[in-house]
């Protein structure tokens, strides 16, 4: 492109978002004086159709060959205006976006200073765009297979949606069974559907679906590649039971040399016991036992009669199994890794872990489950049925000492637990809440129903849960001390059992997952969506989508809705067939390359090879992700980066300062 630059500068008011803090007419007047600028205009909303039309018209009539739009962040509208530029007949990379909203008007109090800053950034942008070169976007095919990470309700729903659309899905679940937390619940709010009755058919459908490959007891350990072409390494932990041979008769569990169940079952949060060889719960999918190598005598000590091996009619038990790694190729990834609950020990004033009959809500779910340790009737540690139960909301939530955010689901599940406890035990139930938050279809009605059922609702943040009695009536009880903020005095309520409604937190290993997938997260650690409103399941990494509680606290309906949305986004990519890869790759100027090979070790993607014949470095463009690390590292300045060329960036830097 040797034509002298004819630049159009378009400054957006963004309603009052920019105009309110930046003197846009003054900025436009200034922009018109810059070298190479042929047209400078102000418009209310540049991203609107008429705004974009303005650019196209000027290109047509004034023969512009470069475009600068000063408006919001390139994260929001760079694609929009590149397309406008292309529609106007120019190469889309002859456009540059200057951020004067997020970068100027929204962060500056003083109007004069904001105006000067906007001018400086536009000056840099104009000088930069004059040196930009036309580039071609590369199209890469999209592998139609999808990886779903996590087999809770969100992952299950996403996998089934995709599989039903005819796509091959690889579903990886860390636990020995899919089902996630939903499998732990007895009933779900507000309809009191039986959780198993609605979940189990979906779990079975996953197992039976010809398009789904299910890897349970497995973890994704490495992800390479880019949108459309990911290479994923899955580690299958040894189950010590061969899934291909086992038919789920469970004879082996009966035959184990341990007669008693004496090891804590993680699925029951340790409330129930299991043998070293076990299935986590009766509806497990796959219904194949797993052996815990920490508990199994043979695997721990090398000495055991191996009665399980003898009992298996199909020789499915293989105590020599080792972790296996396999690689799969997929085009898109849906992350549905879920949540963990707040550790109630962090609120020592509530007595969890000290007072035996203080349990968390998740434990209460198990106590209320027909397949749980008490077969659906909550019992105290002494085996008796509680006469009175206190449910404390917001444990760890809405609290600047722990988690400042509201976990969204706790009010509703606390009401559900209140209903179930009352139904199963006839106990008096007291709910202690700060605010009752029940927005959602049928949720407020459920709350009303609970009031009619005679649940006691006390507004106030509980100060303390104690077993120190102050009166005869409190003896042998757990006492909840709370300021009843509606009645206006402090109350002491003796109960037999306390349920702590703990909030939702990111999984403990969310940071590792985030790094592996190059996702970002908010300050509380949940994965961040690309846009909170308009791209709620997309992430900053193309081709990776998020669904369910790994993105933030949410209930089952919202998780399922998000999973469907994530599946649809993946389908849209797959059916388009190809993805655009930004042409920001590094390039070697062979005549300058001394063949020192310094760059080879710098590239994190192994994209640089040494051409032994020519004795120069060579970059494989499909492998290069465009970070530019090698550009800086080249001692002979033989490498440059497209669109971020050294001379272009130097010009922008000089421009913002001139």
């Amino acid at each position, binding site marked *: 492109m040797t034509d002298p630059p004819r630049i159009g500068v378009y400054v957006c008011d963004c309603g009052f978002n920019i105009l309110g803090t930046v003197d846009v007419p003054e900025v436009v007047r200034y922009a018109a004086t810059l070298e190479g600028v042929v047209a400078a205009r102000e418009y209310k909303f540049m991203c609107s159709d008429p705004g974009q039309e303005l650019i196209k018209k000027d290109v047509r009539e004034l023969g512009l060959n470069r475009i600068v739009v000063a408006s919001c962040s390139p994260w929001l509208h760079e694609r929009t205006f590149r397309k406008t530029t292309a529609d106007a007949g120019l190469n889309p990379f002859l456009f540059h976006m200057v951020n004067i909203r997020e970068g100027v008007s929204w962060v500056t109090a003083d109007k004069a200073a904001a105006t000067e800053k906007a001018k400086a950034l536009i000056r840099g942008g104009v000088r930069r765009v004059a040196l930009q070169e036309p580039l071609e976007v590369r199209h890469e095919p999209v592998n139609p297979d999808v990886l779903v990470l996590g087999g809770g309700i969100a992952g299950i729903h996403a996998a089934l949606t995709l599989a039903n659309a005819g796509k091959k899905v690889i579903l990886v679940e860390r636990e020995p069974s899919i089902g996630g937390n939903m499998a732990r619940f007895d009933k779900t709010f507000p309809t009191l559907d039986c959780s198993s009755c609605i979940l189990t058919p979906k779990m079975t459908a996953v197992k039976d679906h010809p398009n789904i490959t299910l890897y349970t007891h497995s973890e994704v350990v490495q992800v390479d590649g880019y949108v459309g072409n990911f290479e994923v390494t899955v580690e299958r932990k040894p189950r010590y039971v061969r899934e291909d041979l086992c038919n789920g008769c469970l004879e082996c569990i009966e035959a184990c040399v341990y007669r008693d169940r004496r090891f804590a079952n993680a699925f029951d949060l340790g409330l129930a016991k299991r043998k070293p060889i076990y299935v986590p719960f009766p509806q497990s999918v796959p219904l194949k036992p797993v052996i815990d190598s920490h508990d199994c005598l043979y695997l721990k000590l090398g000495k055991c009669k191996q009665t399980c091996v003898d009992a298996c009619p199909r020789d499915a038990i293989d105590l020599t199994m080792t972790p296996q790694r396999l690689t799969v190729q997929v085009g898109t990834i849906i992350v549905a890794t879920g949540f963990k609950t707040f550790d109630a020990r962090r609120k020592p004033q509530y007595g969890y872990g000290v007072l035996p009959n203080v349990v968390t809500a998740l434990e209460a779910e198990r106590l209320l489950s027909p397949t749980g340790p008490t077969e659906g009737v909550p019992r105290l540690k002494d085996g008796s049925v509680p006469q009175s139960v206190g449910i404390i909301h917001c444990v760890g939530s809405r609290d600047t000492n722990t988690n400042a955010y509201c976990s969204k689901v706790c009010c509703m599940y606390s009401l559900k637990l209140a209903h179930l406890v009352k139904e199963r035990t006839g106990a008096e139930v007291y709910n202690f809440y700060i605010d009752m938050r029940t927005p959602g279809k049928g949720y407020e009605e459920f709350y009303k129903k609970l009031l009619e059922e005679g649940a006691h609702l006390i507004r106030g943040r509980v100060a303390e849960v104690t077993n120190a009695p102050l009166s005869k009536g409190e003896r042998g009880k757990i006492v909840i001390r709370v300021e009843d903020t509606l009645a206006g005095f402090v109350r002491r309520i003796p109960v037999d059992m306390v349920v702590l409604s703990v909030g939702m937190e990111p999984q403990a290993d969310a940071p590792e997952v985030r790094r592996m997938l190059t996702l970002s997260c908010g300050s509380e650690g949940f994965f961040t969506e690309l846009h909170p409103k308009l791209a709620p399941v997309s992430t900053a990494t193309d081709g990776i989508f998020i669904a369910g509680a790994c993105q933030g606290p949410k209930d089952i309906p919202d998780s399922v809705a998000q999973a469907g949305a994530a599946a649809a986004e993946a389908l849209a990519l797959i059916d388009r067939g190809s993805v655009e890869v930004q042409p920001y790759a590094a390039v070697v100027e062979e005549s300058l390359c001394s063949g020192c090979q310094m760059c080879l070790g710098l590239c994190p993607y192994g994209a640089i090879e040494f051409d032994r014949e020519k004795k120069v470095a060579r970059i494989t463009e499909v492998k290069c992700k465009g970070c530019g690390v090698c550009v800086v590292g080249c001692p002979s300045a033989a490498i440059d980066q497209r669109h971020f060329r050294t001379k272009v960036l*130097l010009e922008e830097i000089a421009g913002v300062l001139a």
Partner: protein
Amino acid sequence: MQATVQETRFEPNIVALFCNWCTYAAADLAGISRMKYAPNVRVVRVMCSGRVDPSFVLEAFRSGADGVLIGGCHPGDCHYKEGNYKAMRRFVLLRQVLEDFGIEPDRLRLEWISASEADKVRSVVNRMVEDVRKLGALHWRVG
């Protein structure tokens, strides 16, 4: 009354080289959250802090910057795996070179700011503007 005070106050020019994935996104978040910070900083977006060539920093000082701020992802969080480590090593070396040139090394700063740390953008920029204001103008224009 206040205007006379402001007129005499030195307003430093600061160039910020922010990586696309973490610090630039954090600066966007600061905007979305309507956080106000000192207007002295001019952001230039690069894909990775590992793309920051020492010559960018020298060019900025040569063109009238009184300070340069490099922002990247936290160690271990780099979108390109390890570009920020490269940035860190180059930064240490460059500060020594600057000192040899007679430029106070504190005029160059490297900060790890993740996409969620909008508040850190505000505090880092404000602090840097104050610190550079104390150092005074650089006057290193060459040629």
